[in-house]
């Protein structure tokens, strides 16, 4: 549980770490949109190069990025099996008795895998280089313009930062209760289905009870310190965009524009090699 790489902040010192969280979030959103444009492998190559460069600049180890993708492995296998069973296009690459595996099944899986990998890498770079608190400040500022249509930007940011704050607490709590119930004979590995269901129940119920209790106490503590939602609040930390932040956004916009132009086929040159 302590080896989770996904979403973990790595306190290093790099250009990317020092960038404005708003710029990083903006760039992430632009690249996410770019990934969803079906622009073929050329497009993904461009994004891939950009992502790898960003990871290098952020001084992240590739083993770290790799670990953040591990949870996806299970999904990948699942996807591959489904595709092999369903997709019957392209040429046969493997024949087992009367069952054939087609090339398209592999290609389509690969296509989705590349997209997922890119998305996970981008989010991992964002969360690894930005303190959770800065991230929420960035989100709050980015949501500010939507206040005109009554989006409670500050409250949303507060909710996110509270949620982030309590993730480690909840993980710890879960481990504690799991151990306590294991002492009462809960065995999640062996045992019948009914026993397993009871085991899960014996974990979930106390977890919810204590989470609600914590929420209650936290609300009281916040009120006791004069927190009033909707009220205007000042902020100690001010975010400032600098040259490098604009460059990051510019690059992201360029990548998105490139993807769109491939898709619409309005490039002066052809990239149709696959």
């Amino acid at each position, binding site marked *: 549980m302590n080896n989770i790489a996904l979403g973990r902040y790595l306190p290093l010192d790099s250009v990317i770490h020092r960038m404005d969280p708003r710029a990083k979030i903006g760039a992430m959103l632009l690249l996410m949109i770019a990934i969803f444009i079906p622009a073929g492998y050329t497009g993904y190559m461009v994004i891939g190069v950009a992502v790898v460069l960003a990871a290098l600049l952020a001084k992240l180890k590739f083993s770290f990025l790799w670990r953040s993708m591990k949870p996806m492995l299970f999904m990948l296998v699942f996807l591959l099996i489904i595709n092999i069973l369903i997709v019957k296009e392209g040429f046969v690459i493997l024949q087992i008795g009367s069952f054939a595996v087609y090339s398209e099944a592999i290609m389509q899986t690969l296509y989705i895998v590349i997209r997922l990998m890119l998305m996970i890498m981008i989010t991992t770079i964002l969360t690894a280089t930005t303190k959770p608190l800065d991230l929420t400040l960035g989100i709050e500022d980015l949501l500010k313009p939507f206040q005109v249509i009554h989006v409670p930007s500050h409250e949303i940011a507060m909710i996110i930062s509270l949620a982030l704050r309590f993730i480690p607490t909840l993980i710890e709590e879960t481990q504690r209760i799991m151990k306590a119930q294991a*002492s009462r004979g809960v065995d999640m590995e062996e045992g019948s289905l009914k026993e397993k269901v009871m085991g899960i*129940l014996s974990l979930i119920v*106390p977890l919810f009870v*204590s989470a609600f209790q914590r929420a209650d106490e936290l609300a009281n503590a916040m009120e006791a310190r004069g927190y009033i939602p909707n009220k205007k609040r000042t902020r100690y930390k001010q975010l400032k965009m600098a040259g490098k932040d604009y460059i990051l956004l510019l690059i992201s916009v360029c990548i998105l524009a490139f993807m769109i132009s491939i898709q619409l086929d309005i490039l002066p040159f052809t990239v149709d090699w696959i």
Partner: protein
Amino acid sequence: MPIAFKDVSHIYNADSPFSYVALDHIDLEIAEGSITAIIGETGSGKSTLVQHLNALLLPTQGELQVLDQCIDSKQKPKNLKQLRKNVGLVFQFPEYQLFEETIIKDVCFGPKNFGVQEEEAIQRAKEILKVCGLDDSYLEKSPFDLSGGQKRRVAIAGILAMDPSVLVLDEPTAGLDPQGAKEMMELFVQMNRVYHKTVLIVTHDMEHVLSYCDQVVVIRDGHMERACGVKEFFSDIRLLRELRINPPAVIQLRERLRSEGFAIDPSIIDIKQLAEAVASEVKHHE
């Protein structure tokens, strides 16, 4: 020896930058039928130590013998379930592990997991709840409607109902009122005297150690500082000072008298004996 630690070390997150040595070469034996207090500052490794007793944690190095089973780093004991049944471990703030709709169901949960039949489990649960001071009117109530102290009793009853031969309690009286804490300690003494269970209690309360326990184990920064009888422990005033332990009132009085020039045997830990010693000392000087 029902329990023996042989050179046990435990390292959290071994082989990672976050590795932390929580137990450092612990050698320890606990005699059958004793009540042992495990003391030490917060973060010294007491909870880590007791979680080895039913193999919730495995030693990183060394091995321990619990009842007839051996626990080492490589494998969980073959008969894990049997071990968990025989070593009842009550966590700190056990009231957070209640989950059933009714108290009786919650107390039956443990025994049923260990293969006890429904009727027998209910029978046992009723008896144990009575011993823990909750009469039959509570059986069908929701555990979430109880007070904090009562919830804790239910949680402890849930472990006692498993009928373990070793009972391990991690700070069972933390956060209870003095009267509630006293009743709880008396319950554990009863478990020891009447039901012949070996009891291990992690505690910070020296009065409890003095009044209810036979043996003391001192853990300090993951090392075992001392394991001895209660009398010996409270006689060693230098150790108490070094550990920055606030001694029980009797011991404080004894030391005060001794520093005032009374020739009193430093192994006296009982108020009656202390009074007699003072009386004879006074008579002697008259």
